[in-house]
């Protein structure tokens, strides 16, 4: 039986590339090295609710059709739409993303990624102040001071700490966890916080205050910091500032606690300034804990093809970008789109009610291997092969390192790349006909 080594796990942004997969009769029967999330994705695929056939909604019910019929129905929706939202494209390959951007340009759509509800504000922060970063390999080999700020890798990136950060053993960190100071800053004592040397509990939504206080202290102005700030006593903040300054190599990993809380992108913006301040004393970097395994890849591909990392509007015939105006949620809340194509992501589950309410009113095309809340709202459903399991392709890890995902088993389903290509051809055909 074939045993495939060093398969890449296509679940979270850690993109673990050391998975051993045993395949028997074109089925994955054993997985080694994966976490609970990865294991569920690799092995669970035979138990989960796959979309078994393309479908079109008729009289309120989704009924099976052929790929050709589904592609044609989807292309008609796109051609008849004056304002299409194309959203998602993050649990798929860079090759499919490139095709999706081409389709968005062809149809004058607005295309956005899951960064809209994730690390979008981090992209804005990087545009404001830069993004002093490093590869996870550098963190593994060098970082002796690690901070997890508003993120909970025990749950969201379960192997991050053993492969790349707190527990990993590297060139200059051969003692592993003992060689590193681990601090967690959060609003509640998470399972990650329980593993930390130091847990700093802040008042929800006061991240910007704490970053600002830390900056004041690092820059020698601790006299301006009040006795308590962000719910944290000044003495504790001074201690944290000392830990950061005295580290040989500092990495602040940050998550949704930073990007989704009050001040949003200004939190990341201020954090980049703090990293810059710390670099007057030592070496410091920051890395966003990316969720979807290839949301980083969307940012890369979109940037080299359009100049912008997300929220790109092709309505004027050229790429236009102004998040807050062209973000997927802003668009839906303004009830602007008259059609949507949602692929390799689940807006039905992960957008707030007002945005979902509008999605329920307009024609929705879904491209996904699995049935999910978006399927409940979709009018045309096109099933796809699972990238990293049934299709190969490129993905970018959270530190923007590209990795090749292998095809492990055969599939009867078309790949996202093929579906997007077919759709583009059909759209052009219909437009010529018109």
């Amino acid at each position, binding site marked *: 039986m074939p045993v495939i080594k060093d398969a890449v796990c296509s*679940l*979270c942004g850690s993109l673990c590339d050391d998975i051993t997969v045993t395949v028997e009769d074109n089925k994955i029967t054993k997985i080694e090295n994966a976490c*609970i*999330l990865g*294991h*569920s*994705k690799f092995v*669970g*695929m035979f*138990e*989960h*609710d796959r979309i078994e056939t393309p479908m079109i909604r008729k009289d309120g019910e989704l009924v099976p059709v052929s790929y050709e019929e589904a592609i044609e129905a989807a292309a008609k929706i796109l051609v008849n739409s004056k304002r299409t939202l194309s959203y998602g494209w993050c649990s798929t390959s860079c090759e499919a993303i490139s095709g999706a951007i081409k389709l968005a340009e062809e149809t004058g759509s607005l295309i956005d990624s899951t960064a*809209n*509800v994730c690390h*979008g*504000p981090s992209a*804005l922060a990087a545009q404001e102040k830069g993004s002093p970063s490093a590869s996870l390999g550098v963190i593994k080999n060098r970082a002796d001071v690690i901070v997890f700020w508003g993120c*909970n890798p*025990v*749950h*969201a990136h*379960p192997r991050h700490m053993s492969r790349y950060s707190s527990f990993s053993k590297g060139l200059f960190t051969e003692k592993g966890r003992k060689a590193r100071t681990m601090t967690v800053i959060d*609003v*509640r*004592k*998470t399972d990650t916080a329980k593993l930390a040397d130091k847990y700093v*509990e802040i008042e*929800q*939504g006061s991240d910007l205050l704490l970053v600002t206080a830390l900056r004041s202290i690092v820059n020698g102005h601790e006299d301006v910091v009040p006795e308590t700030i962000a719910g944290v006593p000044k003495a504790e903040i001074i201690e944290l500032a000392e830990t950061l300054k005295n580290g040989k190599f500092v990495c602040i990993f940050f998550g*949704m*606690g930073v*990007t*989704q*809380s*009050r001040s*949003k*992108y200004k939190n990341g913006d201020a954090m980049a300034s703090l990293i810059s301040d710390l670099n007057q004393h030592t070496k410091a970097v920051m890395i966003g804990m990316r*969720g979807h395994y290839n949301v980083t890849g969307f940012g890369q591909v979109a940037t080299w093809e359009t100049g912008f990392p*997300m*929220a790109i509007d092709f309505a004027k015939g050229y790429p236009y970008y102004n*998040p*807050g105006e062209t*973000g997927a*949620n802003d668009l839906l809340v303004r009830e602007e789109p008259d059609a949507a194509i949602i692929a390799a992501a*689940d807006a*039905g*589950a*992960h*957008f*707030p*009610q*007002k*945005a*979902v309410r509008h999605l*329920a009113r307009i024609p929705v095309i879904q491209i996904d291997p*699995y049935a*999910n*809340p978006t399927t*409940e*709202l979709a009018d045309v459903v096109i099933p796809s092969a699972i990238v990293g399991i049934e299709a190969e392709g490129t993905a970018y890890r959270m530190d923007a390192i590209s990795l090749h995902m292998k095809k492990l088993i055969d599939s009867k389903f078309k790949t996202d790349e093929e579906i997007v290509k077919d759709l583009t051809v059909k759209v052009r055909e219909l437009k010529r006909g018109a």
Partner: protein
Amino acid sequence: MKIKANLISGRTANQGAHLEAKTHKGYFDACAYCELNSADLEKLGASEGDSLKVTTEFGEVVVFAKANGGNPDGLAFIPMGPWANAVLSPDTHGCGMPGFKGVPAEIEVTDEKPLDMKSLMKKYLED
């Protein structure tokens, strides 16, 4: 009895393990609950597994009660997913990102039961 809480959402390992199995009951179990600390649950007179109605200016949702000693007083956590999104803020403050954390909420015990995923989504089609 109602309590006022600050509502946040976020990932959990169980929610993540059901990312590609959202039609399964395991996903419902992993996402349709609200965590409060024991003192807050006591104020409500609720035990784990009781139904709680969470109301914000954006909507209401019924979820199960769960205890989490890591939550400070007045902090409520619902795993990310359609139940949390029934009540979180769609306002992006002009920067693209909705308000998934820090939404003022009122929480009370109810006799209603949480809706399963399909029933919850069906409500959007009926609106």
